[in-house]
């Protein structure tokens, strides 16, 4: 096991290194005109644009820039944003934004697992009955209709019916309810539908039939055999879901005006804010790689049959 963890850590480090390097170099391949808006072309001379590029440090050789970036990261300096929030230090941006996204992301995971898993179990248990049909109907609607439509209707109508604020306010707890629920609407369906599927699959296995023939109670079989085995494929994604809560939700944050991380990566890529893109890519890739790694470890604990290395057989 220790050996496995060591090997995976090395692999992860290499993966992260490659991701950062490739993204870094790709950003440098972009034409420098991306740093300017159409208006900048009308108001700045060629020399001024050159001076500007110099001042934001993109005229140095890419490898030198990469070296500086890595050295600075190890010194704890993430640098400053260039175009998205000119001259603002990236540490400040992250400090201001991560909290919002993390809180809502976490709340959404709790809500969607809290509702989605019981819903999936019920649907599997009463397969073909009204509960199952209602659940399936909900899941299909939520997954098939473009989310913007129902999220928007949800915001307008639910806030009107319950007299809740339309936007998020830090100091008004009642305004936290709608965004947290909206963020969970589709993941509830995700948990429910997949858990149902795995459970139904599992319930048709021979060993389950055998257990039933043995006379074990239905709820015992469901809990101890079906659920436990069906949960494995779900569990593998949980660590990365938890780690990546900080990435925020673009639509929800925009709709409820939550100043979180959603859309930050997209904005920074669109506006060619190299420094910000690099840092975000670094953070997200570390978290994703770590998430997958932890997911693999987690299922070993849930399902003892799974071995990560052959030698341990």
């Amino acid at each position, binding site marked *: 096991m220790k050996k496995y963890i060591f090997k995976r850590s090395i692999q992860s480090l290499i993966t992260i290194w490659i991701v950062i390097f490739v993204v870094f170099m790709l950003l440098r391949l972009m034409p420098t005109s991306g740093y300017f808006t159409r208006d900048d072309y009308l108001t700045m001379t060629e020399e001024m644009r050159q001076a500007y590029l*110099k001042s934001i440090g993109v005229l140095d050789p890419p490898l030198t820039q990469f070296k500086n970036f890595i050295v600075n990261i190890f010194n704890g300096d993430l640098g400053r944003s260039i175009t998205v*929030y*000119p001259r603002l230090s990236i540490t400040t941006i992250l400090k201001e934004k991560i909290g919002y996204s993390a809180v809502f992301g976490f709340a959404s995971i709790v809500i969607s697992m809290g509702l989605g898993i019981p819903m999936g179990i019920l649907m599997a248990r009463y397969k073909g009955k009204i509960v199952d049909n209602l659940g399936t109907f909900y899941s299909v609607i939520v997954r098939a209709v473009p989310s913007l439509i129902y999220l928007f209707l949800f915001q307008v109508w639910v806030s009107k019916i319950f007299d809740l604020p339309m936007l998020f306010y830090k100091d008004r707890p009642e305004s936290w309810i709608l965004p947290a629920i909206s963020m969970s609407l589709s993941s509830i369906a995700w948990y429910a539908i997949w858990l149902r599927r795995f459970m139904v699959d599992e319930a048709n296995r021979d060993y389950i039939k055998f257990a039933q023939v043995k006379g074990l109670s239905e709820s015992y079989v469901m809990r101890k055999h079906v659920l436990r085995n069906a949960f494995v494929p779900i569990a593998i994604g949980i660590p990365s879901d938890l780690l990546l809560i900080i990435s925020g939700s673009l639509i929800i944050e925009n709709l409820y005006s939550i100043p979180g991380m959603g859309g930050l990566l997209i904005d920074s890529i669109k506006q060619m804010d190299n420094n910000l893109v690099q840092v975000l890519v670094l953070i997200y890739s570390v978290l994703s790689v770590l998430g997958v790694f932890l997911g693999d470890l987690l299922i070993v604990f849930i399902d003892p049959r799974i071995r990560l290395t052959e030698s341990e057989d």
Partner: protein
Amino acid sequence: MKKSVSWLLIFTMILVTLAGCSNNESGGYEDVFYGTFSGEYKTINPYDLSSVTGYTIISNTIDGLVENDKYGMVVPSLAESWTKNEDDTVWTFKLRPDVYWVDSNGQKTEYKVTADDFVEGIRYISDPKNAAKNFRTISSVIKGISDYYYNLADIDEGIDIGMTREEVEKSFEETVGVKALDEYTLEYTLDTSTPYFLSYLVMELFYPVEKEFLNEVGEDFATSKETLLYNGGYYISTWERDKLIVLTKNDYYWDKENITVREINLQKVGDEITGLEMFQRGELTSCSVSAEQLKALDGTEWEKYVNLKEKNTVTFWFTMNYQSKNPEYKTFVNNLNFRKALLHGIDRVKISSLYEPNQPEFFIRNTITPEDTVFDPNGVDYTDYPNLKPYKENNPYDPELAKEYMNKAIEELCSEDGTINGVGRESVDMDRIAKFEVDGKLPVDIVLATTTDPVETKKALLIAEMLKQNLGEENVNVIVGYAATSFQDEVFSPMNFDLVDDSYSFKFADPSANLERLTTDGSLNEGGYTVEEFDKLVEEATAKSDLVERYTIFSEAEKYMLDNVIIIPYMTGGGSYYISKEVPFLTPKGQFGLTKYKMKGSKIQSDPVTVEQYEKLKAQHEEEIEKLFQEGN
């Protein structure tokens, strides 16, 4: 349990609502302005602003030397009075004494606003390291500033100019034409005679900054409310990035009697629909209304509250590519009759109605310089000069005439069988915009470049249809080309277009603002034309300091451009719809710079302003301006 919690929630909400209602009315008017912003405002660094939200924040928190009053007149702000020399090259300002900078708690700091602060502002923007993108607007105004900037830029690029950076920086006082004569006297020395210099001073680039404070905060300057100082009617009391900005009245403001709204509260709202919904629920003072929403409001109780924002100085014009890679078009565009056919063949009203369905005619503009913007000392609008008046007043759209000119052009350029003289079979490569074969025969292929933005696309298709109909389908064939990423990279820089339109802002109160940039070497000559006669006229005009003489020559130059249809101006910017409880025409009015975003003198009534009320106030306002002019102001 659940029930009691929800009752508690409801109870607190009622309390909050009640608390919000009481205590915010003074003399029948509300004293908090609740507004929104949608996009990100990147920064509030006063010298690097690029969004309306940024302008609103800075104009209300920092004052410059002068500002506009509600009639658009330049009135003293931090400068109490000023004098200038005979040829308008040296301007001396006497500052208001004992104005202090305040911090983000609204507390007076130890720093006074002095002449040095204005010098420091200019020093800040003229250092390329600070990357003030709008710098060019004034780079040819203040004496020596351009040399200073480029010397520093050269040094940064490693070019040896025989001086170190420190030496150049030290030379600032001698080389750049801005000087603090004493604590409260400031002097600008300008490159050329600039009678309209005051219209520059409402720009953020001329705003003051406290040197000691700037040194203290260094690179963090203006990245948070604590790293900026305020001398305007408000200070930033709350700043949650991408969420909420609260501006609170500055008790130490020199003109605090006229700060009638106690607090300006701006919060981020992601989309227009939410904004309107919030307004209808009474949570906002003002919100914008899109053309689609306008249709939805038709016939509802809200219809009577929807007003149209005044047009602004931004002008849309068509640029034609005189060096097109498309030989058919190149042959035609260099023919005056064909250009006239375009001029008369484009229905401006129809294009404008994509933006303003109700009053499209109101937004037509056929001159390059905006109307109601530049006035001579006799109060005559520059666009009313005899050279331009006919253009201003007549909509050139006339399909009959267009056809006539088209036929004339064909007669001159084509042989009997419709072959375009001098053009053969050829393939045209405009990269991602268009690739096609021309056959050297009529119809003429015209590449109309546009973006993938839905409104822009609609507009391009409309224009394409118009040209086909009005110039004849047998005569022209319009190819619409789409730029998917950067319009500058794909269309303008490589000149991959035949016909394209864009909007251009007008930066200061002199026709040269646009005309000088439209010369053969100017930055707005994006069609690659050569207009020597125009260049000469512009050069002649810029040297004149007598305004009437100056404007007359400029109007001649502009007439030359319009007579020869070098570019085709067709529409103004502005004119979006909005609903607001703010009484119109009370706050500073201005065509340039920041002061038009000031909330000074604003009054917020409890009901939205109706169209009727708006019209009444507008008429009254115009009457007052008329009177002012007659009194000789």
